[in-house]
C-alpha cells in the first residue's frame, strides 16, 4: 500500500463551498497553497461593499499560531519589537519581528485570547523561526492555520450585521479588542481588527463550523448590504488605509538574497512599534545602532497629482529626470473613496520627510501606445482613509 500523496492542487478553505456558490468570475489565485478569489463578481462593487456596507473576506489561509504556556508573554516580548506586557487579555497588538540584524521578518497581529494564551497571525509561514526563538522558554507554538477558519467582516454596517447575528455586547468592543461568544455550540472569537482602515471585525471559529458561521452571517447581513469580496477589493482598501503588504511593501528578511533588500521597522515607518525600554528582544542591538546612525530607507505615503496610478514607478527628488532616482513605488491605486491618486513607496534617506515634494515617473498605456508623465507628489503622514467611524465606540448602526 502506498502512502497517499499530499494534495497536488490548491487547498480549499472551509468557506470554499459558500464562496464558490457566489462566484461568477472564476478568477482565483494561490495564497499560501489555498485558492483565494481575486474577485467574485466585480472588484469595484466589492470594494464599495467595504466602504459603504459590509464586505466579507475569507482570511483562513492567513498563517495562525497558537502560543501558550507559562512563558508565553515573555517569549512574545522577546520575539517582537513592541512591549507585549501592555497587551492585556482581550486585546490585540499589531507587531513586527526582526532577525538579529534588526531586519523585519514579518508583521502580524497578536491576539491575547485569554491569560497566557495568544494567537499570532501573519501572511508568511514562520514555524522554524518561531520554534528557534522559543529556546529557553516554557512555551508551546502550534500551527492552527487549517484548524481555525476566519473571516474579515468590514465596513460601516458590519457592527449591525454582527449584532443582528445575536452577538450581544459587541457595542462596547473597542478597536483592537477581542471577545469570545458562544456560537453553534462552540466558541466564536470576534476581534475589532482589519486590513481596511474602516469600521470592521474579524471573526474566528473552528474550521468545522465555518459554513454555519457563514450562513448565519449572510442571513443577518442580507438587509445590510453584505457581500463576499476578493483580494482585489481588499488590496485597494488596505492601500487607502496605508497598511503594508509583505512581498509588496517589504520583503521578509529571511527570504532576501541580495544585500539591502530587507527593511528595518524604522524604514517601514514603524518606529512606534520598537520599544527600547525592553531589555532584550530580537534585533535590539542592531536597531539601537540604526537609531543612532540613521536608516537607509524610508517608507512614504504619497499623495500624487493627477489620476494615473503610479504602479512600479521610480521616484525622483526633482522634476528633471537627470538625477538618480531616490526610490520607487511599492503599492499604488486610484482611491475611489478619497478621489485621490495614492501610493506607498520606499525612498532613500534623507528624502521623504512629511510635507516634502517628490516626483513620480508614471507610464500608462492607452490604445497600445505608452505615455510618460512626471507627476508631483507630496509626502503625507496620515493614512489616506481614516474615518471617525473606524474607532467610534459604540459604533453607529451604519
Amino acid at each position: 500500500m502506498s502512502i497517499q500523496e499530499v494534495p497536488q492542487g490548491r487547498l480549499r478553505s472551509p468557506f470554499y463551498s459558500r464562496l464558490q456558490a457566489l462566484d461568477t468570475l472564476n478568477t482565483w489565485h494561490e495564497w499560501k497553497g489555498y485558492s483565494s478569489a481575486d474577485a467574485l463578481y466585480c472588484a469595484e462593487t466589492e470594494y464599495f461593499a467595504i466602504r459603504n456596507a459590509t464586505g466579507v473576506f475569507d482570511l483562513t489561509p492567513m498563517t495562525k499560531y497558537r502560543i501558550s504556556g507559562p512563558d508565553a508573554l515573555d517569549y512574545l516580548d522577546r520575539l517582537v519589537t513592541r512591549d507585549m506586557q501592555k497587551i492585556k487579555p482581550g486585546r490585540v497588538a499589531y507587531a513586527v519581528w526582526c532577525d538579529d540584524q534588526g531586519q523585519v521578518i514579518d508583521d502580524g497581529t497578536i491576539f491575547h485570547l485569554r491569560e497566557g494564551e495568544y494567537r499570532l497571525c501573519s501572511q508568511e509561514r514562520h514555524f522554524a523561526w518561531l520554534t528557534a526563538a522559543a529556546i529557553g522558554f516554557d512555551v508551546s507554538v502550534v500551527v492552527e492555520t487549517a484548524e481555525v477558519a476566519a473571516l474579515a467582516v468590514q465596513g460601516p454596517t458590519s457592527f449591525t450585521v454582527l449584532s443582528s447575528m445575536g452577538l450581544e455586547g459587541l457595542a462596547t468592543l473597542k478597536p483592537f479588542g477581542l471577545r469570545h461568544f458562544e456560537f453553534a455550540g462552540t466558541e466564536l472569537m470576534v476581534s475589532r481588527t482589519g486590513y481596511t482602515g474602516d469600521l470592521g471585525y474579524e471573526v474566528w471559529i473552528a474550521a468545522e463550523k465555518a459554513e454555519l458561521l457563514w450562513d448565519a452571517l449572510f442571513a443577518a447581513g442580507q438587509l445590510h448590504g453584505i457581500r463576499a469580496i476578493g483580494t482585489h477589493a481588499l488590496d485597494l482598501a488596505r492601500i487607502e488605509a496605508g497598511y503594508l503588504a509583505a512581498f509588496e511593501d517589504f520583503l521578509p528578511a529571511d527570504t532576501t538574497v541580495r544585500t539591502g533588500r530587507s527593511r528595518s521597522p524604522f524604514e517601514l515607518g514603524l518606529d512606534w512599534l520598537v520599544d527600547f525600554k525592553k531589555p532584550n528582544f530580537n534585533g535590539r542591538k542592531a536597531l539601537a545602532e540604526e537609531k543612532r546612525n540613521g536608516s537607509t530607507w524610508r517608507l512614504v505615503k504619497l499623495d500624487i497629482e493627477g489620476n494615473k496610478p503610479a504602479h512600479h514607478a521610480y521616484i525622483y527628488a526633482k522634476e528633471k529626470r537627470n538625477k538618480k532616482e531616490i526610490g520607487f513605488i511599492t503599492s499604488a491605486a486610484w482611491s475611489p473613496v478619497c478621489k485621490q491618486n495614492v501610493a506607498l513607496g520606499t525612498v532613500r534617506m534623507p528624502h521623504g520627510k512629511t510635507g516634502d515634494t517628490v516626483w513620480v515617473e508614471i507610464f500608462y498605456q492607452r490604445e497600445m501606445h505608452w505615455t510618460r508623465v512626471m507627476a508631483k507628489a507630496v509626502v503625507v503622514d496620515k493614512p489616506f482613509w481614516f474615518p471617525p467611524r473606524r474607532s467610534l465606540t459604540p459604533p453607529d448602526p451604519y
Partner: protein
Amino acid sequence: MKTYDAIVIGAGHNGLANAAFLAKAGLDVVCVEKNEYIGGATVSRNLYDDWIYSNCSYVCSLLRPEIYRSLELHRHGLQVTPYGGSLTFMQNGDYYGGYHDPEVKYREMARHSRHDADAYERFSADTMRQCRLVRDFLLKTPPDPTSFKLRDLRELALLGGKFLEMGEDRMYETIRFWTMSVAEYLDEYFENDVVKTSLSGSGIIGTALGVHSPGTAYVLLHHYMGDVDGNVGTWGFARGGMGAVANAIAGAFQAYGGELRTGAGVEKIVVKNGRVKGVALENGEEIDARVVVSNMDVKRTFLKCMDQSDLPKAFHDRVSNFKIRGSSGKVNIALDGLPTFPSLPKGSSLYHSDMHFIDSMERMERAYDDWKDGTWSKDPYIDMLIPTLIDPTMAPTGKHMMSCFVQYCPLQIEGRAWTDTERQAFGQTVVDQIANYSPDFKDLILHMEIRTPQDIENEIGITEGNIFHGELTMDQLMFNRPVPGYAQYRAPVAGLYMCGSSTHPGGGVMAAPGANAAREILFDLKRKNTVPENFGDD
C-alpha cells in the same frame, strides 16, 4: 608539413567548446580525440539494440547559457528539457518527494517536518546568495591574487567588492559556508533526517568525501548554481542524451571551419626549446601547431603525456598531489518496460524525478566508510533517473532507459584492480537496492552496463574516472585550480594551455573552462575575443 594555429587534445565538451571559440576567431584548429566517437564523458552511446545510453554524465544544468547562445547550439541540434523533482524512498515504506511545485513541495516537507518546511525558504535564500557570488565568476578567468597586472587587480577588486557588499554577517556566513560540511550546513536549517538526506546528495556527488567531510557544502552549491532558462537550481535532460551537447558544440566547431579527428590518441605533447611544437599521436604521426590545448585532466596531461623534464619541479609536484580520486560508478540499464514502485501512488509526478534509495545521514556516511575501506558502498547513494519518461528518443516506444549514478565506488578494490566478479557484484548491489522498492524491476532488465572509475579512466581517459577532473574543494578552486599560479589556463610551457575541468570553474558540463581558456589564448595571440561575457545575475 602543415602547422595548425591550434591543436585541442580531447573532444569532450570543453575541448570542443575551446576549439569552437578559437575557430570562430578565425584560427586554423584541429581537435584530436583518442576514441572513435566524440564527447568524452558527455556522450550518448548505442550499446544495446535501439537504446541510447548517456553512459557518463546524464543530466544538464550547468552548461553556460552564454555559450549555448553564442555558439548557437540550438542550430546544431541541442535542446535541454527540465525535469521535475526528486524522490527518496524510505525503509519504513514511506517516501519523501521533493516536488517541483513549491507549494506541493512545502506540503510534503511539512508532512515530514513542519519546521523544515518553513525553514526551506531561508535555506533557499542563503544558498542562492552563495550561488550568486559564484555564478558571476564562472565565465571569468580567476584573478591571480599575487599579481599586480591591471586585469588581475580589477577582477580581484570585483570579487572583493561582491564579498564586501554582502555585509558583515553574511561575510561570516560565506567563509563558514565555503569550508563546512554539507551535513553541518543542513543542520543549521533542518531537523528531519530524510529531508536532510535528500538535500545532502548534491554535496557528495562526484566527490571522494562524505556528507560530514569539510568542504562538501560547496559541492552542494556547485550542483545548485546551474539553471535551465534562468530557473537556478533546475536540472534538465539533453534531448538525445548528453552526447547531444558534445555533438552540438562539435557542429558549431565544424561550422566555423574546425577539423575534427577521431581515433587520434595523443602519445606525447612535443616541446622544443621550451616551447610547445605540437603533438605526437599514438599511431606515430606528428601534428605541428603554434598552440596546444589540453582538455585532458592535469594529471594525464602533465604526468602521462609530457616529458617530466619540460616541467618546473614545483609545478610537477603540485600536479602529482592534485586530488582527483575515483569515487563514483555508473550503472546504465535498458528496460523492457517501466518498473513500478508500489510505495509510490499511481500516476504520481514523482515517477519523473530523480530517485534515491537511502534515507538517513547515517547511511550516507556509512556508504562513504566502505569507500575508505577500499570497496564499493554496500548500501550506496544512487542518483537514478529514467530519461525515457521525458525524452522519447532514448529507447524504443514503451521501453525505457535507466541511468544510475552510484556513490561510492573506488578506483581499486583494496589497492588492486577490480575483478570481473567484483564488477558484477557492484552492479548487483545497485540492482538489489532498487529492487527493494520495485519488485518487478529485475525482470525488466534487458542489458546493463556497469562502469567503475577504472572503466571510465580506461575508456574516457579521465584520471581515476573522477567526474569533475579533480575534487571541488577550497584548496582546488578558483585561483588554486588546478594549482596556484597556473589558474589562468596557461601551462608552464609556452604555447601550452589547459581547458579541461581541472581548471576553473571545474566539472559538471559547464563548458566554461573551455570557453575561458579560449579567451586567454585569443588574448595571447592578440586575436579578437569570441568568448561571450557573463549574462550577469541582475
